């Protein structure tokens, strides 16, 4: 944590090395989280980039006493949820002639895992990703997504059960 605060402080002072270190430390998690929620490589890249651009734009206003990662991940996950919701609406169509087939989900990442995650609503996917990829506690997730803790817990429980049903038992 101390290192991260130091990097933020140095980045605020203009250190390109510091911003590069912050990027290196946090891009993989941000990108992966976005991908696991949206299941679209291009969208995940855009979302992660946008989150980092927001970080750069707001760097001077960032409170160094607060941890950087939750702030970044909150942006990533909320944008990913928004994107997934919009995409679901798009697939529903535009009106009477809107029967365009939905694109097949991208399956480069373990097909079984992605297919199973794809069965969860975006909000539930996001909670699962925050808990089991990024290791946030249910309380932290509740604050990040502005949910009640009980809602987070129930989404986690239902998500785990559903994934367990969908993913074959490890041999």
């Amino acid at each position, binding site marked *: 944590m101390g290192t991260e605060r130091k990097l933020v402080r140095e980045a*605020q002072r203009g250190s*390109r090395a510091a911003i590069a270190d912050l990027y290196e430390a946090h891009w993989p998690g941000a*990108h992966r989280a976005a991908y696991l929620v949206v299941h679209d*490589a291009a969208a995940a890249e855009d979302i992660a980039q946008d989150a*980092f651009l927001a970080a750069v734009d707001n760097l*001077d206003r960032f409170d160094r006493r607060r941890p950087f990662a939750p702030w970044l991940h909150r942006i990533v996950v909320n944008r990913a949820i928004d*994107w997934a919701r919009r995409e679901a609406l798009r697939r529903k169509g*535009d009106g009477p002639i809107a029967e365009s087939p939905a694109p097949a989900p991208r399956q480069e990442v373990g097909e079984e*895992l992605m297919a199973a995650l794809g069965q969860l609503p975006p909000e539930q996917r996001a909670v699962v990703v925050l808990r089991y990829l990024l290791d946030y506690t249910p309380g932290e997730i509740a604050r990040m997504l502005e949910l009640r803790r009980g809602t987070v817990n129930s989404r986690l429980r239902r998500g785990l059960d559903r994934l*367990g049903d969908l993913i074959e038992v490890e041999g």
Partner: protein
Amino acid sequence: MNEDRLRRLLRDEPLPGAADAERRGRGVIERAYAERVPIDRPVLPRLALALAAVTLLAGLVLSPAGAAVRDWIGDTFDGGVPNARPALDELPGGGQLLVQSSDGPWVVQADGSRRLLGRYGEATWSPRGLFVGATAGRTLSALEPDGTPRWAISAGSAIDDPRWSPSGFRIAYRAGRNLRVVDADGDDDRVVDTGISPVPAAWFPSGLHLLAYLDGGARLRIADPDADKAMASAEGSPGTVELAWAPDGSLLLERSPDALWVREVSASKLVGRIGIGTARRIPLPTGAEVGAAAFSPHNETIAVLLLRRSDTATPRSEVLLVDPAGGPPRRLFAVSGRLSDLVWSPDGSRLLLSWPDADQWLFLPAGRTGRILAIDGIASAFAPGEPALASFPRIAGWCCSGR
């Protein structure tokens, strides 16, 4: 499911193109960081601050972002925004553009890829960008964004000004001097009014199927084409060439070449009544031509493109953000040159304008932070095979997946 196994699955599965994405992202972030304008913090002595300011200004003038900031400081660009991207290889802000060229309408995807839909005239997005309505002489067609036609209908006169309703279920258009509406599946084509003015009709922004238009006497009318019923009318503002609704339907904008007017509108679905208020002129600099105006997609802020006479033959273009409730407008951008085509991004964060003489598109941040992005080579991008003869295309719409 076992939590540890789920953790392993989420963390260890390889991501498609992860290394390339990380490399591209690193470049974007490093450029953005290099171009940012830091907020001065009162921790340095005044002399150091002054030196920093001089260095910053020098850097700004020499950098792409600085080129943008330079204008906000007070100067104007001349002949194009410097350090523009050389080609349309990405759409800043994402979404899809509908672009009108002399060859026909094009759809531009977020990655800059583009497709000519065919030999059509004017075009309109469906509300979620799944279809395009396009005219060709006396024909109106619904196309998929790859150009595949879904249906077509013909009218007795040339068709102009197609407008897809926000509900997705209707398309309004003008056939000669008749205002007509057709269902979005091509059925039930009918006349709404005859002898109207040649001004595009404007759909009410909510799910109600209400159309605002000007009749042959330039009187403002609101009609329900489903019920074949005139709902309200009022004296139109003089010289109106464009109508637009605020996103919540509470205001109607009338633009003439030298003025902007807004009026309050109350729509009650329950009692089937529409109330049209008195038009109120928005104060703008005298003598300025109003080149374009558009409501933000999310609030009542109006972006206005003003063209002002200058000492030279070249006008000065200014982009203002106006609050119709009052207060001074905020100048967003100004150039020595003639801009055109004012379009909001779907998320309301940017404005896209054309600068034909500089062969550029300009993407302006609507907020108080962000960078102006310019893209060069627009005319030739929409004239494959004959770039020397290319005329500058017109932006017909920006849809829909804002980010």
